[in-house]
């Protein structure tokens, strides 16, 4: 089976090369037979990569430890659930997943658009084939998942204990789906640039893909935060690590695109900017993989740690030259149909929203690569950690939160004073009331006060929009309020789904601001001893150590420390934090014991208890106790955000807006310009 997988990988490389060549020839010569061949080569590529993936999965499930990848990431006693996740636990498997998902999405995109966008399709197929060829070539020449060892070990090294968590089963594929689905908008952007068909037609083809990609990235990022929080035991969920930053960068540029594309569809503006954002998002998704695979961030001198890094660097440069080169070539064709008329307009608000998103992306990018720059310029290594990112991004993020409230309500073209008063009177009042209330309860952190006040502003704008929309339907159509609500959302999913996303964003900001009130302490307790920990809300947790027990469980030996918890005298329950010693199939320890956190969560705060260890091998235990306000809001904010994204993504019979449909036809330009 593995030999078949290896052979299919090679065949896929050849088919990919063929597909790339004929696709671009088909686009240039308009030969339908070549176009069909290019399209079919994507489907064949997908089929071959399915076989390759099945072969690797078969090797993982049958414990073929002669294969280096299988021996490195699995063991005989690894639960099947995690054997599945070993598929993408290492570099070689994740490259295969990239290639598989790119060709899967590429095939779907070609099938969905069959018969449409005839001038674009060959170039779309060609671009997808080139991306797939890059990943396949990287596997074949630098990171073959079927590479064999010179001997067959009796058991594998097993999966890293920290990866044996349900969050890790879903978080990486979600991120990969997000990264790879950006390839489809990129392919359409390249196709539009090469073919010169730069009306909004290509935007219609990619609208759902960009939303899907953004949704996958959002879910992947939030799942990663959840995994870090429950598994790593440091009491936080975001550490501004280069790998985290790598996933955040394309999310920021995609978010900018989802806003600015509305201006292009509605007003025919920002065409160059939108193509730039799509190209930039794709490059950032490749950059993220390059960053994590090359080892370039730890030091400039560790660049040669992995030769896969060079493959990614070359591809990154080539894709940047191609993408931005084509944009420069078509620059004169991408003139705006109308021009921005006033600083006080929705267009300007969206423009500033884009500006802040891009500046945040730049700040994250700059902070991530600054250690390399410093070492190159001064020969001095510096660390750029969370204090830097928080210092720079908090004010920018708050500016963005303000625009989240302003953008959707302000009028297109030019807002009158009456419009501003009507739209922003209640939200501003809500903001001031919340700010005053927080000042009255003596909330000391100024950033947090601003965040909650702006959050109230945005929530008020969203509520006002729903109330007015439902009220208008109720009055005009005589519908009952719940019916009016459902129809309001159903008739304009993009707009009202967007509002739900904004609510999710406010929930996330509220949670981030809660970090300002985080408290942590360490205590040593013998069985029966207690410690009191005061919450920022004013109540006191009374924590009593019950003892430490040891037992076998699945593929691990567990040492569990239990505490009874009460709050202001009210018993809340028993919490158990563990040390898990993972074992191989012979029952021998594999790595050092991993820590499992005990978490008690509600909407107000989390009580987060970590069993740090036993004192001199006795039941006397050291605990790290963290009180984390509002963490619940991160997970539920993420859910609300994803729900809003789904509403926006849900297919609707109407399709693009009339204005956008007009712009998809060349004649529409005249109509719009003349209007």
């Amino acid at each position: 089976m593995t030999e078949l997988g290896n052979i299919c990988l090679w065949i896929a490389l050849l088919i990919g090369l063929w597909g790339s060549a004929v696709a671009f020839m088909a686009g240039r010569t308009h030969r339908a037979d070549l176009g069909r061949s290019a399209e079919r080569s994507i489907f064949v590529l997908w089929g071959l990569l399915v076989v390759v993936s099945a072969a690797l999965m078969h090797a993982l499930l049958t414990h073929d430890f002669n294969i280096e990848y299988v021996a490195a990431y699995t063991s005989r006693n690894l639960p099947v659930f995690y054997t599945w996740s070993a598929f993408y636990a290492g570099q070689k498997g994740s490259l295969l997943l990239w290639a598989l998902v790119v060709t899967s999405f590429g095939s779907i995109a070609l099938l969905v658009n069959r018969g449409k966008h005839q001038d674009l399709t060959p170039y779309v197929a060609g671009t997808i084939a080139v991306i797939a060829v890059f990943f396949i070539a990287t596997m074949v020449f630098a990171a073959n998942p079927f590479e064999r060892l010179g001997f067959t070990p009796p058991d594998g090294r097993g999966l890293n204990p920290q990866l044996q968590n349900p969050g890790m089963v879903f978080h990486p594929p979600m991120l990969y789906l997000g990264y790879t689905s950006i390839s489809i908008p990129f392919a359409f952007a390249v196709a539009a640039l090469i073919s010169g068909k730069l009306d909004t037609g290509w935007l219609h083809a990619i609208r759902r893909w960009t939303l899907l990609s953004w949704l996958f990235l959002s879910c992947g990022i939030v799942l990663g935060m959840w995994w870090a929080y429950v598994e790593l035991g440091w009491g936080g969920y975001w550490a501004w690590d280069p790998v985290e930053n790598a996933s955040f960068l394309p999310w920021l540029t995609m978010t900018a695109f989802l806003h600015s594309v509305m201006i292009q569809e509605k007003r025919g503006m920002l065409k160059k900017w939108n193509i730039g954002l799509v190209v930039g998002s794709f490059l950032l998704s490749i950059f993220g993989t390059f960053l994590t695979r090359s080892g370039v961030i730890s030091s400039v001198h560790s660049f040669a740690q992995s030769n896969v890094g060079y493959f990614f660097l070359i591809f990154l440069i080539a894709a940047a030259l191609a993408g931005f080169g084509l944009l420069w070539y078509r620059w004169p064709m991408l003139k705006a149909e109308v021009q921005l008329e006033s600083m006080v307009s929705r267009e300007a608000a969206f423009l500033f929203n884009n500006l802040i998103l891009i500046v945040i992306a730049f700040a994250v990018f700059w902070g991530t690569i600054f250690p390399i720059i410093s070492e190159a310029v001064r020969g001095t290594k510096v660390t750029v950690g969370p204090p830097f990112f928080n210092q720079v991004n908090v004010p920018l993020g708050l500016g963005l939160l303000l625009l989240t409230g302003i953008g959707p309500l302000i009028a297109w073209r030019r807002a009158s004073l009456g419009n501003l008063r009507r739209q922003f009177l209640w939200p501003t009042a809500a903001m001031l009331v919340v700010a005053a209330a927080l000042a009255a309860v003596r909330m000391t952190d100024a950033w947090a006060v601003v965040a909650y006040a702006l959050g109230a502003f945005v929530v008020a704008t969203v509520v006002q929009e729903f109330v007015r929309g439902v009220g208008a339907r109720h009055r005009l159509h005589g519908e009952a309020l719940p019916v009016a609500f459902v129809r309001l959302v159903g008739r304009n999913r993009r707009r009202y789904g967007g509002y739900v996303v904004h609510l999710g964003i406010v929930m996330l900001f509220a949670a981030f601001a809660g970090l300002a009130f985080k408290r942590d302490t360490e205590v040593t307790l013998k069985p029966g001893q207690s410690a009191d920990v005061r919450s920022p809300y004013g109540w006191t947790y009374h924590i009593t150590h019950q003892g430490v027990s040891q037992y076998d469980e699945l593929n691990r030996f567990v040492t569990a420390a239990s505490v009874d918890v009460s709050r202001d005298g009210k018993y809340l329950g028993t919490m158990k934090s563990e040390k898990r010693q993972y074992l191989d199939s012979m029952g021998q320890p594999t790595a050092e014991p991993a820590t499992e956190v005990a978490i008690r969560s509600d909407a107000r705060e989390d009580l987060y208890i970590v069993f740090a260890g036993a004192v001199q091998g006795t039941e006397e235990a050291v605990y790290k106790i963290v009180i984390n306000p509002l963490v619940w809001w991160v997970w539920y904010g993420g859910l609300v955000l994803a729900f809003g994204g789904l509403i926006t993504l849900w297919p609707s019979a109407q399709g693009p807006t009339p204005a956008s449909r007009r712009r998809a036809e060349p004649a529409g330009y005249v109509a719009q310009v003349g209007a």
Partner: protein
Amino acid sequence: MWRRSALSLLAVALTATGLAAQTARDSALSRRLKARPADSLGRLEVPEAAGRGVRPVTAQDNAALVMALEHKIRCTCGCNLDVYTCRTTDFTCTTSPAMHQLVLARLDSGMTEAQVLDAFQKQYGEMIFMQPPKHGFNWAAYLMPFIGLGVGIGLVVGLVKRWAKASPRAPAQPAAAAPAVGATPEEMDKLKQELEKFEA
């Protein structure tokens, strides 16, 4: 009656299967656990399975000054975490506990917070801090995003002003979602049609 008997039999069978499976799964550590008698002193049967031994926490370990200092200093084990987070998270790390002891020793010797940080910088260089110290070239790290923002704002404002001059002044847009008050039936019909169009 027969149902209860069947359920009892099922329960016995499941328990027996579970026990058999448990015996088969027993690890070497577990066998050690069973071989040892209970210890009245509260000693763990397999102490190494609870990770490295830790020493009891002192008041100094939790001191605000110590925590603040250790949040500023990077652990040199390669984890990218600060000393406090690493020593209270990665219980396999031996570097962060040693650096913690060094912080305590330096404070005990009468050093101020600034002197402790200075001593760490002399020992490890600038990379020991969790963020670049604000001097010289490092200012570029802090200022570049805001310079970018300033340039961006300048560009947008400049462009909008130029465009506004070039385009004829259109009347201000009425509020998008303003409800009509006191409108005639004809106006309401027109509004209804507009709303339909708007929602499409």
